[in-house]
C-alpha cells in the first residue's frame, strides 16, 4: 500500500483475505494472518488492506528466492491509458490532454508501435516487480486485441500495448528472474479477476523482480 493513504473498501479487504486463504502455495503464517484479519475487514477495511499489503510484500520477497531465469521471449500487455500514465516520457505526456488524445495521435501514425517505442520513458526500470506480469510471447501469436484481453483475463478495452521482451535481452539483464504468480502478487495489482488455476487454455503468466528498460526489444500496438 502506498504510504500516506489508508483507503479501500471492505469488499476489497475480503477479496484479499479470500485469495490468500485459498492459495496453499503461500506460507502458513500469512494465511493464518489473513484469517485473523477477517474479523476486522468489515469494520476497518483500510487497516486490514494496509496490513495485508505489507504482509504480501514480505511474502513476495521470500517467494522471489525461487525465481528462475526466463527461457523464452516474454511479453507484457497493458492498456494505452497505463502506457500514457506510467511509460510515456514526461515531456511527451505533458503535450497531451489525456490518454485518449494520445491514443488518437498514435492511431493516426503509420507505425503506432514505433511511435510508442520512441515516446517510451527513459527510466531504468520499465516494470517494477509487482507490476511485471508477463506471458510467453509465443502464447500471444496470432491474437488480436480482443483475443489478448480474453486470454490474459483483464477487463479493459482494446487497444492493447504489447511490450516485447526478447530472451536475448532478458538474459543480458541479470536481475530478470521469473516465477509463476500467486495470490500475494494479485494484491498490489488489485487483479480481482486473478485465478489460482492460472490463465485459460494453458497460458502461463510469469512475474519478475524488476524488468529493466534494456530488456524491451520493441512495442506492438494491437488495435
Amino acid at each position, binding site marked *: 500500500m502506498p504510504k500516506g493513504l489508508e483507503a479501500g473498501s471492505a469488499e476489497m479487504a475480503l477479496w484479499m483475505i479470500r485469495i490468500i486463504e485459498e492459495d496453499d502455495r503461500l506460507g502458513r503464517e500469512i494465511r493464518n494472518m489473513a484469517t485473523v484479519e477477517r474479523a476486522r475487514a468489515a469494520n476497518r477495511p483500510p487497516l486490514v488492506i494496509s496490513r495485508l499489503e505489507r504482509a504480501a510484500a514480505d511474502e513476495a520477497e521470500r517467494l522471489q528466492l525461487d525465481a528462475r531465469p526466463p527461457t523464452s521471449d516474454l511479453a507484457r500487455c497493458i492498456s494505452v*491509458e497505463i502506457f500514457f*500514465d506510467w511509460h510515456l516520457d514526461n515531456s511527451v505526456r505533458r503535450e*497531451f490532454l489525456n490518454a485518449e488524445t494520445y491514443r488518437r495521435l498514435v492511431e493516426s501514425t503509420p507505425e503506432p508501435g514505433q511511435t510508442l517505442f520512441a515516446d517510451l520513458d527513459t527510466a531504468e526500470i520499465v516494470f517494477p516487480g509487482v507490476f511485471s506480469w508477463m506471458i510467453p510471447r509465443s502464447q500471444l501469436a496470432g491474437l488480436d486485441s480482443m483475443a489478448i484481453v480474453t486470454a490474459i483475463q483483464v477487463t479493459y478495452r482494446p487497444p492493447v500495448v504489447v511490450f516485447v521482451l526478447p530472451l536475448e535481452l532478458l538474459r543480458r539483464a541479470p536481475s530478470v528472474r521469473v516465477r509463476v504468480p500467486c495470490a500475494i502478487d494479485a494484491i498490489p495489482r488489485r487483479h480481482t479477476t486473478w485465478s489460482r488455476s492460472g490463465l485459460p487454455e494453458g497460458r502461463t503468466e510469469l512475474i519478475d523482480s524488476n524488468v529493466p528498460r534494456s530488456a524491451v526489444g520493441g512495442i506492438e500496438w494491437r488495435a
Partner: protein
Amino acid sequence: MASVADLELAMARTALAAFGDVSPVEGYPALEVWRSVTDGLGRDEAQALPIALGEILPLLARSPDRLRILLDVLTTFDVFESMPALLRYIASSGDLDAVICAANLAPNPGVNPADSTRLQQLIDSMRLSNHDRNVLAIRLDPSAEPTTQRLALLRAQLWPGTRSGEGTVDSGLAPIVAVDEINDSADFRWQLIGDLISAGAVVRRLPATWLKEPQRAWLGGSVVVLSWSGEAAMARLAPFSSDMTVAQFLPADVPTNKYSRERLLRQIDNALRGPRLRIAPDSRDVPDMMERDSYRLGSFDAREMVYLAGSRSSTLQRLRLDLEPKELNSGLYWSFNQLVALRTWEFWRRETGRFRLPTDVLRGLVAFQGAETPTQVAVTGDGRVLVASGQGFVDWKTGQVVSEDFVRLDRVFQPQTFGGRRPTPALPTPSAFTRVHPGVVGGTPCVDGYRVPARAIAGLAMEGVNQIEKVLAVYPEIPEPAILDAIAVGGQVLHPA
C-alpha cells in the same frame, strides 16, 4: 438533513475508498475510479462530489501513483471546482503535473478569475524549462505559439475555435462534447460524462453559473453541445463563438437509465458526424438473444407469434405438432427458439415460393441449442442448422462443412415485406423505440430501455378516445415519441393480420 460539509466528507471518504481499491497499473484507472465513485449517487451527493475530489488531494500527496490518477480524473472529467484545492496543493508542493492539471481546468467559465490569476502567479514563480512554459502557455492562452508539432495538435484540441477549416485538423483529435449544466442533475450528469469519456470524447462542462466569460476559442464549430435548456443554451453560448450553428446543439431528454444514456450517446455521435466515438455494442442489441442462455427463453402468445414471425393464426395452428407449444391456463405459449423457427420457415417458403415447404427447418431450429450471434447461424432447406466456423459454415451437430444453399438468420431478422401483407417487423427491434428480448418480459415487444410491454401501452391507449395524455401521465419517464411508437406496435400485436 445532512449539511453540505457532511455530504462532502462522505463523498471524500467514498472517493478515498475507490482510490484505494483501484489498480494504478491496470486498465483505465481514472475511469474506473469515476465509475466507482459516481455509481448510485443521490442528487445531493453528486453535487458534493467535485469539491470532495479536490479535498482529498493532500491525502493522496504521498501516494504518487494514486495522485496521478486523481489529477487524471480532475482533468479528464473537467472538475473545475477543484481549482482552489489544486492551487493550495501547488503552492505547497510545486508539483508540475498538478500545475498542468490546473492549467487544463483554468479556461472553464466556472473557475473564479482570481484563481486563474493565482495560477499564473504560481507558474511565474516556478523554475521551468522553455518547453514546460510553452506546454502551460498553450493550455492557458489560445494565442500562444506552439513550439512543436504535437503542441500544435494540443492547441487544436484544447482551443477548437482556433482550428482552421472544417474537418481539416480533426484527424488525430478527440471529439469535444460540451455538457450544459442548466436544468440538468448532477447524478445522471456524472454517469453520462463517464459514458462519454469511455467512448473517447473530450468533455467540456458548461456550468450553470459562470464566474467569467469563456474565451472565444474555447468553443468552436466542431463542438457538440448537449443541452437540457433548449434555446437558452444557444443564446448563452452564441456570443462566444461566431462559427457555432444550431446543428451543434443537441437537445436532450433526461436519460433515466443506462439504455437511454446509450441512445443519447448514439445521438451525440451522429451530431459529431460520426463514427467519432467508440461506442460499445448496444447492451440490448440482441445478437445475444441467440446465445444458449437466451435462445430457449420467452413465452410468446399466439398474437405475438403471428406478429413477430410474419405468420398467420391458421398456420400457427397447423404447425402445432411441429412447434410443440406449452399449454398454460388453457393458453398456448411458444419460446424464442420456436419463434425463430417459424419466422425462418416463413421466410424460406416466401423466398423459394414453395408454400408447401416441408417442416424440417422448423424442427431443426427448435432443436438447436443456441450460438453466439445470428450472423453465425444459418439453416439449410432440409433443416440442418449451421454455425460459423473459420471462413464457412458447418453443421452444428456433425461439424461437416456444408456447401449447399442456406440462409443466415441475420437476414431472417431483417424486416420483411411480401405482397400486400402487413410487413413483418425486424428482430430484435420491431420499431424505432421498441425491442424484443426473450429474457425480458417473456419476449413481448417492450419500450426500448424499459420493461414496459408495447401491448400494455396500446391497451391503455385504446380504452377511450384521446387517451394519449393518460398514457403519458401513467408513464412519465417514457418520452412521448416512444409512447406513440409503442402504441403503434402494441396495436399490431393486439390485432395481428
